[in-house]
């Protein structure tokens, strides 16, 4: 029974199924029950489960995260939702000092089954405060699980696993994935947390990627295939805990590594992948790995600059060619007025 669903619909369905099955699950966040329903990801839920389980809240991210944590300690399974990852910056004490450590620092007596969904914005001038992907931060904090789905199939399966997990899970959703479709089975299924996925099999170069970078890697791979270059893509769906086996196996085979990440480079997650590979399978590496990330500056709003801010599949293509010692083709000619600030030209938001 194959059925196509959008990423956003998959998210919605995952929550719907869990809400239906388990009365301790509830969803809380600014606007989760309004007409826009978190870009549609909570659509129809308030009608079905009522405003107590699909709960709007004051603009009090810090305390509300504490409230969610307190409820998780006492029998509930909250799903907190932030329309932008940045809004969770207000709640870092509750997330990092409290939720991440509660289980450990009380010797395993209590646990925090809580999911915090955070949307990473991009395009249409989201700018410096509506676009940051700080997944590296969360991955750095012991006690948090950090998940970045790239496909609708994974979005549903990983979100169900996250909701059922007894730990705080940071679930990071890239806005440009929301309308992408995939085969998504009906009913409950789980994609396990902490498992990387070989998304594409290949022999020449390994690309490790997460979230939207995975899509760009796929696009690059399609290009490269035309020239007979074979790419293996490892989708690092959970960046903590990290399942390194498929990655290491792949590099053993290809000897070449590119890490494509949606965040900044400096002290970021891409460096972790490079380090792991270097520490574990150094002798297999034929060339130094390459990181493809954002440049280390804040996000500008004008598309004239953001056009040059976000890496393109062509950057991955160039990196692959470099690793293979092939002549890099000339970069595509991007103009400031080009409309690279939308996932596709007809896209009209909401952003």
């Amino acid at each position: 029974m194959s059925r196509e669903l959008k990423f956003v619909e998959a998210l919605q369905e995952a929550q719907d199924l869990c809400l239906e099955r388990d009365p301790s699950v509830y969803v809380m966040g600014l606007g989760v029950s309004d007409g826009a329903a978190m870009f549609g990801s909570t659509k129809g839920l308030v009608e079905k489960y009522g405003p107590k389980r699909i709960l709007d809240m004051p603009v009090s991210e810090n305390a509300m995260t504490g409230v969610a944590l307190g409820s998780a300690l006492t029998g509930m399974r909250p799903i907190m939702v932030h329309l932008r990852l940045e809004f969770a910056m207000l709640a870092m004490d509750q997330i990092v000092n409290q939720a991440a450590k509660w289980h450990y620092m009380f010797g395993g007596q209590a646990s925090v089954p809580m999911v915090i969904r955070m949307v990473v914005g991009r395009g249409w001038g989201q700018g410096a405060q509506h676009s940051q992907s700080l997944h590296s931060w969360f991955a750095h904090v012991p006690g948090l699980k950090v998940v970045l789905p790239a496909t609708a199939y994974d979005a549903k399966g990983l979100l169900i696993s996250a909701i059922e997990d007894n730990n705080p899970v940071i679930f990071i959703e890239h806005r440009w994935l929301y309308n992408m479709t995939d085969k998504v089975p009906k009913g409950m299924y789980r994609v396990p947390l902490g498992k990387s996925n070989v998304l594409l099999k290949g022999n020449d170069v390994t690309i490790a990627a997460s979230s939207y970078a995975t899509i760009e890697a796929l696009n690059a791979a399609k290009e490269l295939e035309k020239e007979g270059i074979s790419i293996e893509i490892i989708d690092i769906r959970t960046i903590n805990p990290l399942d390194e086996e498929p990655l290491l196996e792949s590099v053993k085979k290809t000897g070449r590594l590119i890490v494509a990440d949606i965040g900044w480079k400096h002290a970021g997650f891409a460096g972790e992948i490079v380090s792991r590979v270097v520490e574990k399978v150094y002798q297999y590496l034929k060339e130094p790995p390459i990181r493809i990330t954002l440049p280390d500056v804040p996000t500008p709003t004008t598309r004239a600059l953001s056009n040059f801010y976000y890496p393109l599949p062509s950057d991955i293509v160039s990196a692959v060619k470099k690793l293979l010692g092939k002549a890099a083709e000339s970069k595509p000619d991007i103009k400031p007025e080009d409309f690279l600030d939308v996932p596709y030209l007809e896209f009209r938001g909401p952003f």
Partner: protein
Amino acid sequence: MLEYKKEISLVLLRDTLRIRMIESRLAELYAEYEMRCPTHFSLGQEAVAVGVCHHLKKQELITSAHRSHAHYLAKGGSLKKMVAELYGKKTGCATGKGGSMHLIDLDAGFLGAVPIVGSTIPIGVGASFSAYLQGENKLSVIFFGDAATETGAFYESLNFAAIHKLPVVMICENNLYSVMSPLSVRRPEGIKLSNIPQGFGVQSFHADGSDLEEIYQTAGQAIEYARSGKGPVFVEYINYRWLEHCGPLSDTHLGFRTEEDVINGKKKDPVRNYKDKLLKAGILTDSEFSKWEKEIAEEIQEAISFAKESPFPEKEQLLEHLFAA
């Protein structure tokens, strides 16, 4: 009626009309998809900005949040630079790096606006605090919405400003909504925002944010109070947002308010009501008003042309301004 100074009445109305016309025009143009940034229009809420800023000296600083066009314009921010900023141009008030949610005009005493709800409240307090540290008294006015009073930053800032009796005026525009969420999901039943500051020993006012004269007068009192060294003041103005939260369209199809609600809300149109009042009082004539409309329309057209014709920033600017020298 501000009988004692009828010129003030006229200026207040004209300035409010100006913002109304600018916002209306920008909302129209937004549909061309050339202004490509999240934009929170001030339509319906223009009067508070005008009534408050009319009391302020150029060097007195204001800060605002995501919905800042009216405040920026009322404080004397450059229209050309604002429109250019919305178009993402190099000539914009933030060189294109900011967009509608990040306006700035230091020449006009507009310290800055950013869209994280509540964040500019302490920053605005800090702007007054620096003068305090230097032994001076410098008014700082902070504009924010009803939802910002739900943030911890608001209370922490209120307390700190009160401890040091800083001359800070907090202007809360209560338009009843946070995006689409009504006050009922964000506040206990029956509470009045303007009562909250009293627990901190902070003076507060509550007024109609659609009545230009009432705004002007309460703001005058509040500002006088703060300037005189008595400490911070909080003013709650009730007003109404005409458009969707973000963007140029209506939002009544989204279920949280009806078209009738909006029609009712618009009855408190600060421009129309005050215009009628001034006409009736014989202070304003129809032809004067039409003249304003013509002048303003020209000013707007000029700003739009300026913005449209301005160059985009160059690629090199992407990496520029990471660090200050």
